[in-house]
């Protein structure tokens, strides 16, 4: 059996979710179609993973249409990121088609007239990876726990109580850099000069006392999986709703770098029982001069 995973979309989320699935599917052969700028990073981290990079709708449509895979898995966008799968899916005939139904903006669902019926008709199964959008109530929808690409492993580097995870868009980097300036001891993971460029970030997240990051799918689910508190800046996205995801996860939502730093210091503050040790107070009484 061969599986093709359509994972077009910017950033890390779609590609990482696809990698998580491909890893879980092994030894079944799965290949990923992606247009993320991070394809090379993921290829380097998981050399066994087959990732094909595409750069246009036409190219993506041609790859899916010409695929000989037995199963097509489409991440997030039922008819493709550029709408290019709407005409291709019917050509898949009896071969299975699976939709990974991450959260999806209701505005997009309203805009894409008939998309619910399209999902119901074109997909054999709708898999909701720990969250779902408007199609999560379809009869063939199944909810799973959140997807992570792998569990954390020990890394040989000094631990930092605060880890700043800067995924997302380049124009958001300034926000994270300001947080890093205010928290000079924090470990900074992200695609920026002088930062720790690593994928997946879960190894750093797992040993942090607290993470400051966005509320993208990976960051939130890696924090949930490792039980690490998340201080989240919920960024605006075209198809994703980071604020809702952060709220569902119980993250602390902040707007400014200063708020993020205050929240992180609060989490890292020693527990009250340590800062007011009764034995110390008792010793003072015992050692006080007799009156």
């Amino acid at each position, binding site marked *: 059996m061969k599986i093709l995973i359509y994972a077009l979309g910017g950033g890390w989320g779609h590609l990482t979710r696809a990698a998580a699935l491909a890893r879980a599917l092994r030894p079944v052969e799965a290949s990923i179609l992606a247009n993320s700028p991070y394809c090379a990073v993921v290829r380097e981290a998981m050399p066994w993973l087959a990732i094909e990079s595409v750069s246009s709708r036409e190219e993506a449509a041609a790859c899916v*249409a010409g695929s000989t895979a037995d199963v097509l898995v489409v991440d997030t966008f039922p008819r493709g990121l550029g709408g290019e799968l709407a*005409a291709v899916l019917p050509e898949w005939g009896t071969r299975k088609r699976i939709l990974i139904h991450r959260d999806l903006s209701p505005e997009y669902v309203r805009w894409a007239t008939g998309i619910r019926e399209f999902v119901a008709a074109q997909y*054999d199964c709708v898999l909701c990876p720990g969250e779902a959008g408007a199609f999560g109530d379809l*009869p*063939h929808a199944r909810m799973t726990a959140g997807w992570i690409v792998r569990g954390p492993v020990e890394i040989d580097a000094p631990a930092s109580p605060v880890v700043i995870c800067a995924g997302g868009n380049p124009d958001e980097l300034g926000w994270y850099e300001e947080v890093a300036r205010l928290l000079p001891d924090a470990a900074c993971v992200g695609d920026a000069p002088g930062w720790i460029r690593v994928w997946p970030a879960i190894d750093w997240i797992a040993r942090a006392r607290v993470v400051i990051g966005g509320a993208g799918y990976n960051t939130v689910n890696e924090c949930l999986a490792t039980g690490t508190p998340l201080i989240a800046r919920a960024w605006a996205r075209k198809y994703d709703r980071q604020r809702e995801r952060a709220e569902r996860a119980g993250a602390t939502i902040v707007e400014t770098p200063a708020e993020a730093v205050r929240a992180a210091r609060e989490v890292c503050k020693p527990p009250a029982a340590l800062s007011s040790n009764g034995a110390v107070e008792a010793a003072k009484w015992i050692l006080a001069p007799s009156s």
Partner: protein
Amino acid sequence: MIPGPWKCPKRVGFLFPRPCERPTPIGCPDCNNGTIDDPYRRRTRSGYSDNDDFDGYDSSEIGGWDDSDSTAPAFAGGDSGGAGASMDFSEADGESLGGSDSKDFEDDLSAS
């Protein structure tokens, strides 16, 4: 010069028609400076054309998991999908799948 409030009423789009709404046809890659009456209809793309159809596709064959594979999840579907679900979409349905408001979705391959 086209007055400011004017918005191009022509349909554009890759698979799904949407209003163009450009303030001028000058330099427009879709209508070629106003010379194409219906840019959406004239659009062709890799492997497809307006004359494509999908007659070779049998709607009764769509859906369903291989029951002989005991490890496959039994997502048999129900009223709205899965095995035996209606599979009547074709490229022609792009007309009805187009959005009605002006926000441009499906136009940015770097979105997520």
